[in-house]
């Protein structure tokens, strides 16, 4: 599997570290709502198909990347720097209070 790092170009997956579900937004640090924190810390989406993930190019420039990957085919359809991708996060699951 190759991931095209926006800085380094296409690199083998062995240079990357999976850093989890990219559909999460850290709750307000002052929040004491345990449901919200539980969801953030433990709930992970596990779709069969397109998934928003965070990968770190740990064996390269070390930037964290927001990667859209199809979990069935490994096709990576988009990659951007995670720091620029904040607006892409969807946390609808937590808004409805449902557990993953």
């Amino acid at each position: 599997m190759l991931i095209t790092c926006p800085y380094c170009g296409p690199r083998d997956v062995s240079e990357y570290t999976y850093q989890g579900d990219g559909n999460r937004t850290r709750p307000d640090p002052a929040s004491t709502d345990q449901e919200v924190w539980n969801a953030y810390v433990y709930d992970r989406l596990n779709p069969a198909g397109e998934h928003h993930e965070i990968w770190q190019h740990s064996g390269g420039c070390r930037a964290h990347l927001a990667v859209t990957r199809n979990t069935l085919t490994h096709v990576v359809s988009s990659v951007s720097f995670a720091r620029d991708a904040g607006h892409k996060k969807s946390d609808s699951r937590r808004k409805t209070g449902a557990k993953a």
Partner: protein
Amino acid sequence: MVEQESPLKPVWKPGTRGNFSDGVGVYLSETAPGSIVQLAAWHGEEKAIIAAIKKVAGLTLPDGAGGGAATGTKAAFGFAPGKFLVVDEQEGLVAAFAKSVKTETGTVTDLSHGRTAIRITGPKAEWVLAKFFAIDFSLTAFPVGAGRSTVHHDIFAQIQRSAPTQFDVYVFRSFARSFWTALCHASEEVGYEVK
């Protein structure tokens, strides 16, 4: 001033080894620069860092990922978003950058002791490095002056192509001896000279 000790000392064996049926494939050396400095720009301040490199080191870096430049005594290249490695044969580069890079522009980090610079030169340099790193070393994909960040198992490496058949590999000092040993081993096939 106390000289820096090379981490390669016990495994540093000048001379030629390996298969020379096609001449010397690669020359291996440690460049032991006096200064290795990391500069990091805050988001949007990359141009200011490039300007500082121009001012302090006299090197003109092209825009874009991995852009770099090298002269006989100095070198600089981008290796990550907003991050650059600047190298000088002489000591004192950190102090110079500390003056010219302001807090609002970015940071200056001294790595003069923390990284070991290993140079591999020769017609088979690309071939030998391709044994270690999964990156494209061809001249079109990796032009002169450019830098790359990559890894060989646990050994992180920042690599600059300082001439058409010459690469400078910056590795963590603690891994330098292991990497050097592996590099010599891999170079036997094409014949190598340590100098």
